[in-house]
């Protein structure tokens, strides 16, 4: 029996349409729009102004707090303006817009394809390099990577867990990265292990990627301390708490971080970025993005410079299908619906999913028939039907008692409900209210 997490979970249609499409490099666009907020935490502070010349990899914005991130130019050219524009969040946010000229990289960046396995940097140097390369969690959470690598005093990490499960339907970028950049990932994992001073790492991969599992097992035998753990296909296995539970049977307590049970989780894409930052001095300026959908002509995986408009990716995948109703940044379970295809690709963009009308339309909401299916699929052991009612009726103290803040917003409840109730919509609302109340209490 393959391992998986212990509570709830669902198995939506996988639809990994682009699994066999090798990563292609998308040509550098004419302009990029690089938002200064591509991570969880405070927006970065621009350090360039209109008319400045920049090179690929040049620092253009600095962190404005501890939880924040460095941002680098993904192209060479001239800063056209710093403007407000709509990003993935649906809000207008500041972005640095750069007109591309040539493709001139910072000289410090090693662009050769040679694999460097020797890791001379000390743990402290590694963490600093990761921070300065602007690396955030590439699985979609976009939490600055260096913070997780510096456990708070008194907390100890004894194992690194690498997320290669890619549990979202449709998405295949991590899958392709494992197949095509496996060695780089292995070295990246070794670097992370060194930074964390741990001797063990587990790479969790769902069983629907047998080629990646086989390939990674072969590679792992050449590196010490790295184990590949094939996992049963079950959504949301990519959730940090679920992945830790699945791999090492430890459960992170309510309201706590993985470090509480001695674990740190990073995504395979992040491991690749870490390799490039530490061994090649290359900051995070590009990433692999899956472009997919049932009606998409050519579902594909593209290596894209950050700041490239989504529309350019869709063009490369054969153009926008007639029946498109929604464009989703990310996967169908947790991704965000975009209001326009002009939105730029950012550090957290793992995929672009074009959804035809017949899949994207929600069914009419009916009464709760108390079937308890939402309860049995909730990976956090919550009672979604109850949380929705409490949020509807604005009974915040009971919502807090019912652990509404434990909800990881995986959407399994809404996905499952036979009455098509918008459970997660209301739970989100409840979480933001209860969150406000809790914060005002500690003040």
């Amino acid at each position, binding site marked *: 029996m393959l391992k998986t997490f212990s509570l709830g979970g669902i198995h939506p249609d996988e639809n990994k349409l682009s699994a066999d499409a090798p990563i292609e490099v998308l040509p550098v666009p004419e302009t990029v729009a690089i938002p200064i907020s591509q991570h969880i935490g405070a927006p970065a502070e621009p350090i360039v102004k209109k008319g400045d010349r920049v090179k690929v990899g040049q620092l253009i914005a600095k962190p404005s707090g501890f939880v924040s991130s460095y941002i680098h130019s993904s192209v060479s050219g001239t800063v056209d303006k710093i403007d407000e524009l709509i990003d993935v969040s649906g809000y207008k946010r500041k972005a640095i817009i750069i007109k591309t000229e040539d493709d001139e990289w910072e000289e410090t960046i090693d662009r050769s394809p040679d694999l460097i396995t020797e890791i001379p940097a000390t743990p402290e140097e590694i963490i600093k390099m990761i921070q300065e390369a602007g690396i955030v969690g590439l699985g979609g959470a976009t939490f600055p990577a260096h913070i997780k690598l510096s456990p708070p005093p008194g*907390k100890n990490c004894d194992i690194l867990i690498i997320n290669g499960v890619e549990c979202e339907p449709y998405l295949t970028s991590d899958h392709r990265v494992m197949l095509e950049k496996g060695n780089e990932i292995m070295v990246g994992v070794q670097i992370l292990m060194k930074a964390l001073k741990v001797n063990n790492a587990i790479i969790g991969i769902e069983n629907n990627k047998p080629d990646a599992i086989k390939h990674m097992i072969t590679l792992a035998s050449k590196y010490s301390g790295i184990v590949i753990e094939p996992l049963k296909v079950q959504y949301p296995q990519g959730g940090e708490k679920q992945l830790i539970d699945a791999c090492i049977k430890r459960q*992170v307590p309510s309201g706590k971080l993985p470090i509480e*049970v001695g674990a740190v989780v990073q995504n395979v894409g992040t491991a690749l970025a870490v390799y490039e930052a530490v061994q090649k001095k290359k900051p995070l300026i590009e990433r692999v993005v899956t472009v997919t959908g049932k009606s998409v002509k050519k579902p594909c995986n593209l290596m894209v410079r950050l700041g490239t408009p989504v529309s350019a990716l869709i063009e490369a995948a054969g153009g926008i299908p007639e029946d498109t109703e929604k464009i989703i940044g990310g996967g169908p379970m947790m991704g965000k619906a975009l209001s326009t295809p002009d939105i730029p690709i950012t550090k957290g963009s793992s995929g672009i999913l074009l*959804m035809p009308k017949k*899949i994207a339309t929600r069914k009419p909401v009916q009464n709760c028939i*108390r079937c308890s299916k939402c309860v049995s699929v909730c990976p956090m052991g919550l*009672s979604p039907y109850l949380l929705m009612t409490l949020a509807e009726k604005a009974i915040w103290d009971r919502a807090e008692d019912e652990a509404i803040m434990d909800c990881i917003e995986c959407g399994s409840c*809404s996905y499952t409900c036979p*009455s098509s109730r918008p459970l997660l919509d209301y739970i989100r609302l409840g979480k933001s209210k209860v969150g406000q109340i809790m914060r005002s209490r500690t003040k």
Partner: protein
Amino acid sequence: MNKLTVSPSPHVHSGDSVKKNMYGVLIALLPALFTSLYYFGIGALIVTITSIVSCVLFEYLIQKYLLKKDPSVTDGSAILTGLLLAFNLPSNAPIAIIIIGALVAMGIGKMAFGGLGNNPFNPALVGRVFLLISFPVQMTSWPTPIASRLAYTDAVTGATPLGVIKEGLAKGDIMSDLLTKIPSFSDMFYGNMGGSAGEIAAIALLIGFIYLLMKRIITWHIPVSVIGTIFIFTGILHLANPNIYISPVFHILTGGVMLGAIFMATDYVTSPMSRKGMIVFGVGIGVITVAIRVFGAYPEGLSFAILIMNGFVPLIDKYIKPKRFGELIKPAKA
């Protein structure tokens, strides 16, 4: 391209629906329907059709003219209530009584509380128990199987096995004599005994149970805890004194235990939400059923037991919560 829709995640749905679940249960009841038609023939057919048609009609009329809402009869829940009500009636039940039962089930059992999802008690059982109290004679005359295939209200009737035992013991008969007056366990298993139209054939109901489990419409918790509790409880009594207390196998094969445990107690709306809660609920039903059968006035007792436990569901849900993540395994020390 049209204007893009922007809505929060998740962007996909399982495709499950109220309809699918209701029709799923109906399909699971088909084997039992066939056995009831096989043993009780025309009577079973008339009872079933009358009950379903009146339940659907009452729901439609109440929703349309009293509540002034869009009728939701197509979701299958009224058909299901109708079929379950029919399964709980003797196959010679007069049409007028069936219609009254359907009116009570739909009007009082379901719509008075606000329709599907809000009713605290199982509507079909509300109808049945109402009829049992109002028409005790008609509701406890049971046509004999096979012999009454071509008969309806004129069917030859007899007592149910549970009734035979209960009355016999009350008269002071000896258990070993009584055992010769009831069908063999294997006859019971295949449904060859007196009883309400749908409760008789354990085998047919068990096939339905397997179907429900496979389709993930219900989980095992309620049926297994109800049947298990009745078996263990009556088993202990039987071991203590086999002359007064009949075998546990008899208890689970008769009196609609299979029908009630698999199809009535598992009604979504009127059962608890957590797995632990479901087990408490099932054990409660089992204990009350045996108590009524052994110590009470009625030979069977499951309908009452389910309704009583339905009343406890809000309390069960309030105090018994699903296990939360983080409670299962103590955090290992780092």
